[in-house]
């Protein structure tokens, strides 16, 4: 009896500690929200919650320290997304947006995926400027245009933007010069973006070792993304790197940059080009043995709306990443093309993805070649302005040479079915 009580007390203490730590996180989170919204009676609060039932592939996911490139490892019901977006104006043209997320998958379950302050002065000039600072996404995706950088098209996002969501974020400043076409009586609008940032040095780790993946899990402010314990990566006589990455670290003090341009023909056709370089020093390594990866890429995204209901969009990403003294050097290429059609309250989207990572480095025992292609078909139906249901089927064929170091088959076929209930407000 005494022992039970002891056990109970220990469990209770453990639980209490856990509850307290969650409670503290929640407290800080809500305190911050309150501080932000104080004196701002009309702060806008948007939210999205997605609950799913997934029929998972048999190859377990990187979230379970395995080598599958889909998010789920078991047939199960899950909280797929839960986010709150809070925004308001401090003053004319000065506004903030904070997106807080809960994720069931992954290491950090509660946190911030975006937080930024923007200044866009009122202007009737033909040429205008705006700026933002904080922790945000470069606007290189035409896929992630829903609240909280979600995709309104498919649940499983393209390989390109799955990677952007898990490893890339701008902790810095962005300045934009732009000219709305309508202010010039022209069908063409344009924008130029330039940004300086820090704290994205490990960018490239995941696609080098795990390869591209397809999912909708965005990394949070202090997140850690796991992957399989590849011997060539984790062994002390090999690269000696942990079997995870914490993407938002500053390791070398270098300032990264990106440049981007958007060109739009009316609201009908859009082109976005970005050049991104995190300027990381590939020899910089933290005590945790996380490396800075010098990652550079070009991203080109296009979209054309045939009418209000049908659109085609796509994106191509090509670049390279190096860590250490060419311990790992990869060239990567990924693209997708998607057709999406809306009929009344139904939206059907079909996407084709192709992705490839090719290595050219000094360690033959750390094979980094990977590639794959996949199809994603989603149907989403708005029951009303708050509720939506949807189903999605994804299939892919992918290969990663590094699986051989774990005694797994290099090339596998994967598939995943999702049924999703969404509530938004």
């Amino acid at each position, binding site marked *: 009896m005494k022992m039970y009580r002891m056990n109970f007390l220990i469990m209770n203490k453990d639980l209490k500690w856990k509850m307290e730590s969650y409670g503290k996180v929640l407290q800080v989170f809500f305190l911050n929200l309150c501080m932000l919204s104080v004196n701002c009676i*009309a702060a*806008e609060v948007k939210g999205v919650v997605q609950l799913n039932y997934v029929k998972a592939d048999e190859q377990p996911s990187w979230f379970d320290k395995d080598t599958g490139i889909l998010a789920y490892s078991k047939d199960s019901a899950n909280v797929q997304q839960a986010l709150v977006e809070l*925004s308001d*104006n401090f003053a*004319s*043209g000065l506004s903030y*947006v904070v997106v807080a997320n809960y994720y069931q998958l992954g290491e950090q379950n509660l946190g911030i995926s*975006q937080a*930024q302050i*923007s200044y*866009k002065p*009122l202007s*009737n000039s033909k040429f*205008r400027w705006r700026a*933002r600072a904080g922790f*945000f*996404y470069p*606007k290189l*995706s035409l896929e*992630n*245009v*829903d609240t909280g*950088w979600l995709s*309104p098209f498919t649940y499983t996002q393209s390989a390109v933007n799955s990677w952007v969501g898990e490893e890339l974020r701008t902790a810095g400043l962005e300045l934009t010069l*732009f000219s*709305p*076409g*309508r*202010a010039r*009586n*022209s*069908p063409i*609008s344009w924008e130029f973006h330039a940004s300086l940032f820090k704290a994205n040095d490990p960018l490239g780790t995941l696609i080098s070792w795990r390869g591209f993946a397809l999912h909708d899990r965005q990394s949070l402010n202090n997140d850690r993304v796991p992957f399989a314990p590849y011997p060539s990566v984790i062994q002390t006589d090999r690269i000696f790197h942990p079997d995870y990455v914490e993407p938002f670290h500053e390791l070398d003090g270098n300032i990264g940059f990106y440049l981007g341009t958007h060109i739009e023909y*009316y*609201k*009908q056709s859009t082109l976005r080009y970005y050049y991104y370089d995190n300027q990381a020093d590939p020899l910089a390594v933290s005590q945790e043995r996380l490396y800075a990866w010098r990652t550079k890429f070009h991203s080109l995204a296009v979209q054309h*709306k045939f*009418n*209000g209901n049908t659109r085609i969009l796509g994106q191509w990403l090509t670049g390279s990443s190096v860590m250490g003294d060419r311990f790992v050097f990869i060239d990567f290429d990924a693209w997708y093309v998607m057709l999406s059609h809306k009929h009344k309250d139904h939206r059907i989207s079909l996407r084709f993805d192709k992705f490839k990572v090719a290595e050219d480095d000094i360690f033959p025992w750390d094979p980094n070649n990977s590639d794959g292609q996949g199809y994603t078909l989603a149907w989403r139906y708005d029951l009303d*302005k708050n509720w939506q249901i949807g189903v999605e089927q994804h299939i892919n064929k992918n290969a990663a040479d590094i699986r051989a170091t774990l005694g797994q088959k290099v090339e596998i076929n994967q598939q995943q079915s999702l049924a999703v209930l969404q509530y938004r407000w």
Partner: protein
Amino acid sequence: MNRFLIVFLLVSHVVQSKEISVSLLTKSDQELANVVVYFTPKQKQGLAQTHEMAIMDQVDTQFSPHILAIQKDTQVRFPNSDSIKHHVYSFSPAKTFELQLYKELQADPLLFSNLGSVELGCNIHDWMLGYIFVVDTPYFGKTDIKGNLTLDLPDGEYQLDVWHPRIKDKLSSLSRQLTLPRESEIKINLKSALLPDVNQYENVSDEFSDYE
């Protein structure tokens, strides 16, 4: 239009009235819709002042209507029928203002007391463009898609003017003096080509606003 009918009915007890139609053609003989046509009487005493509230709505991230004509001293309400926020502004001398339009929150109406055009923009959605045109008469309207407008006016002397953001002709050159009931059909032909038509911005809207 109901407004004009009421005004007309009120004044028709004492004054004879006359139906007058205006048609406007571009330089290339095309019809032009949404042209504000207004008749300012020489005799301004006793003119009716509307007390109705005018509406400039935001629907699918566009101003609706694209052009709103109002009589001087009319109040305009700016509802927001979208599920997202707007930040409407004007730098026009006739009315300079800015309004934060939160979803599901009503902003106070604004009074438009100065004559002329007020160009509206939205600081969040840069493609949004709308106009409020303020006139000093209760006798006004907009041309239909065939470029025509028909109004009932009390007999008397008037100055007829037109306005549209795409008209490049000097507006005073399009102005006419007329006496009713002597004239009933007026044709206006523009001499200069129109400014480019960029109303295709209104054709393809997007339910998704871009991420920030």
